[in-house]
């Protein structure tokens, strides 16, 4: 039993100490039996605090340490490494969560939070007293990854992983790769188009041996855990044979004869789409697809193109991977009906629609047959909402709006751009665009959130009005030919993936990383990582950085062929065990076997097979089984400390 324990209570800046009286917790912990020292620390994870703990362990000859701070999901390994650096076995370190499960959960009740923190720390001390020195166990891991989403981030991560020697299964829910980027024309800062970037990545992917791409594919189910996930992939039929060499003339005829017509999602409803389609000629893969949910199965297209097969069936593919990387991206915010006149006033569109409109209008910018001269951009639609749920800034939209306004002015003559902002956030190099647009004569106006820009229709005119703080609160109006709502970013709808993988989602509805600075691409689900705009509003550059980071993290996790796991194993007391078969019966891993010992039959644990689930513990009638790290004495002493 450990009897020289050190306790460290973290302020976490003020995340803990704003709600928990950390000095009181420290004082009471210091009076516990076998506690040699008790300290508070501003940031226990800081280098200086870590060095102090190392020095204390060495100087005070500590045989156990307790750090009361954040969730162990974040810093368990940090402090285990601290223990190891000081020569203490890492498993003699106990982390007590007084942030997520105390100060934050009870920020409405400071005395209650302090009382709870005291008890949690006491329980931690008890656990440390009974802790054992252990060595981690290793399990084999498959050096293969499933990347979900073949947008820019997913494709870039796939290439990076493949080049590092990891086998990559890349799946895309849509029939074509590229995600949102393929909808955008010229990009800042390189002036390449989104399609050019997508094309370059796709060409690299098809030439890379160890990437297998499936389009129209989604996760159907998942079993197993980190290092060894068994995943079923559901692949929708394309209804065009895979060996089909695209004959453009035939394809055009097939499109012409298709009687089904609906708003084109690629062009945000500005044009119509047929059931057989490609969004643009050079789209990848080059084979067209049929939207079977909308297709009326008339068979007219089959008469023209024999490669069309309306009888194709859905396929299920089984893959085994060590990790999953989610790069499912984001969507533009869809304004509510009536929000700044959207879908009520005819000439109110979104920024994304304007981008497509520029692509579709060659010499003259027109909308619904009317030539456009004055464009009013209304910023922060669906972002920084005062009343709505989206409190966050979508970050990319100021730059995107200004960039688009510059493109409009460069492409068409006689355009006047009016920007109705809540403050322009063209951070970093993007400020260049802001300067350029100002110099070219764009007008920037600004209001506070308490007096938002108004859009209304009056006397045949669409009017945009602002109380402009840049001109001493003057009410200014613009008669706009086109009102462009600069909409923010929201995560894509991923209900089925979310139900299967259970990756935590934050208040902003994007996937939640373990820590935004320290573990920015990992989730609390071991072996499931995130990158790109599924995690937060990011522009393409930032998405690619995040994808490369996640790629490196995935590779370092699974490429060694084995993963270190907790040494949590079942142990059977030979003296009290009288073979009854109950533990063998419930063990999912065949980890318990019969053995003759000292004249009787007993159960023994095959440590190579034991996964440390503990399912055998409660079925033992003689209570002969203990789980390392969760022994009766540890659990029961913690219970006593919590109630004391």
């Amino acid at each position: 039993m450990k009897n020289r324990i050190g306790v460290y209570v973290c302020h976490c800046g003020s995340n803990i100490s704003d709600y928990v009286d950390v000095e009181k917790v420290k004082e009471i912990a210091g009076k516990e039996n076998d506690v040699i020292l008790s300290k508070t620390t501003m940031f226990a994870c800081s280098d200086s605090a870590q060095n102090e703990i190392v020095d204390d362990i060495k100087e005070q000859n500590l045989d156990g340490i307790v750090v009361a701070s954040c969730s162990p999901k974040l810093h368990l390994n940090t402090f285990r490494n601290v223990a190891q650096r000081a020569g203490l076995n890492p498993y003699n370190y106990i982390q007590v969560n007084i942030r997520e499960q105390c100060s934050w959960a009870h920020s409405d009740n400071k005395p209650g939070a302090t009382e709870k923190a005291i008890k949690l720390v006491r329980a931690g001390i008890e656990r440390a007293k009974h802790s054992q020195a252990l060595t981690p166990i290793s399990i084999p891991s498959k050096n293969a990854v499933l990347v979900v989403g073949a947008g820019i981030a997913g494709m870039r991560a796939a290439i990076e992983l493949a080049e590092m020697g990891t086998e990559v299964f890349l799946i895309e829910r849509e029939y074509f790769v590229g995600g949102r980027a393929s909808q955008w024309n010229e990009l800042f800062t390189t002036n390449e188009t989104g399609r050019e970037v997508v094309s370059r990545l796709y060409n690299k992917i098809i030439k890379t041996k160890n990437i297998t791409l499936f389009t129209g594919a989604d996760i159907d189910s998942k079993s197993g855990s980190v290092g060894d996930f068994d995943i079923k992939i559901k692949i929708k039929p394309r209804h065009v044979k895979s060996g089909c060499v695209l004959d453009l003339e035939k394809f055009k005829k097939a499109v012409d004869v298709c009687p089904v017509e609906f708003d084109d999602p690629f062009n945000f409803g500005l044009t119509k789409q047929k059931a057989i389609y490609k969004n643009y000629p050079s789209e990848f893969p080059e084979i067209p697809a049929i939207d079977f949910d909308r297709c009326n199965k008339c068979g007219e297209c089959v008469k023209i193109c024999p490669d069309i097969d309306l009888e194709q069936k859905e396929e299920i593919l089984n893959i085994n991977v060590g990790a999953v990387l989610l790069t499912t991206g984001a969507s533009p915010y869809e304004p509510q009906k009536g929000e700044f006149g959207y879908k009520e006033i005819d000439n109110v569109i979104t920024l994304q629609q304007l981008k497509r409109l520029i692509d579709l209008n060659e010499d003259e910018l027109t909308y619904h047959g009317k030539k456009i001269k004055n464009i009013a951009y209304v910023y922060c639609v669906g972002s920084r909402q005062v009343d709505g749920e989206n409190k966050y800034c979508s970050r990319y939209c100021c730059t995107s709006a200004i960039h688009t306004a510059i493109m409009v002015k460069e492409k068409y003559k006689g355009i006047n751009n009016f920007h109705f902002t809540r403050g322009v956030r063209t951070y970093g190099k993007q400020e260049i665009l802001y300067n350029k647009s100002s110099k070219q004569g764009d007008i920037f106006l600004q209001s506070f959130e308490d007096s938002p820009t108004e859009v209304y229709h009056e006397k045949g005119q669409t009017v945009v009005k602002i109380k402009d703080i840049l001109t001493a609160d003057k009410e200014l109006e613009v008669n706009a030919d086109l009102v462009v709502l600069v909409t923010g970013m929201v995560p894509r709808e991923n209900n089925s993936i979310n139900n299967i993988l259970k990756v935590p989602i934050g208040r902003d509805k994007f996937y939640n990383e373990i820590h935004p600075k320290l573990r920015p691409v990992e989730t609390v689900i071991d072996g499931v990582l995130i990158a790109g705009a599924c995690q937060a509003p990011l522009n393409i550059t930032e998405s690619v950085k995040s994808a490369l980071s996640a790629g490196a993290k995935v590779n370092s996790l699974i490429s060694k062929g084995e993963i270190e796991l907790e040494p949590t194993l079942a142990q059977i007391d030979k003296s009290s065990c009288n073979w009854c078969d109950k533990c063998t019966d419930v063990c999912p891993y065949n980890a318990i076997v019969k053995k003759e010992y000292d004249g009787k039959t007993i159960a023994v644990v095959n440590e190579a097979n034991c996964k440390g689930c503990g399912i055998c513990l409660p079925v033992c009638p003689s209570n002969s089984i203990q789980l390392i790290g969760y022994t009766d004495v540890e659990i029961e002493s913690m219970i006593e400390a919590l109630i004391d």
Partner: protein
Amino acid sequence: MEKNKTAPKILVFSTEKISDPAIDLAGLLKKHYPSTVYTINVPCSSAIKSRWILHAFEKGFDGVFIAADGTDCSYSETCTERTGEVVQRTHDLMKEKGIDPAKLKMAAICSVCSEPFVKHMKNFVNALSN
């Protein structure tokens, strides 16, 4: 402080990979629940021994809640069934000891089930208070 003296004390057995992240997420989202709820985590909810639960009651906890893995368990497909058996056995032992079985509850809490967890805790505290 006053409300903590009277509020029922609940011991939650959470699981490291599944339900504990949900309880963390509740804190992260500042979803409040009574501060007399204490958590001990284990690898899998099917590993919880009846004696631990009975020990909690003997020492003074008013309620025990098993935040079970449910069908998300990465260890075993039988987790739900086995955890159910733990609850059933413990309910029988509680009856023998004259403890109301309603003081032991179980629900599957997935890794993103912060809202259901908070709701369970509030309902359980209310039920125990009455």
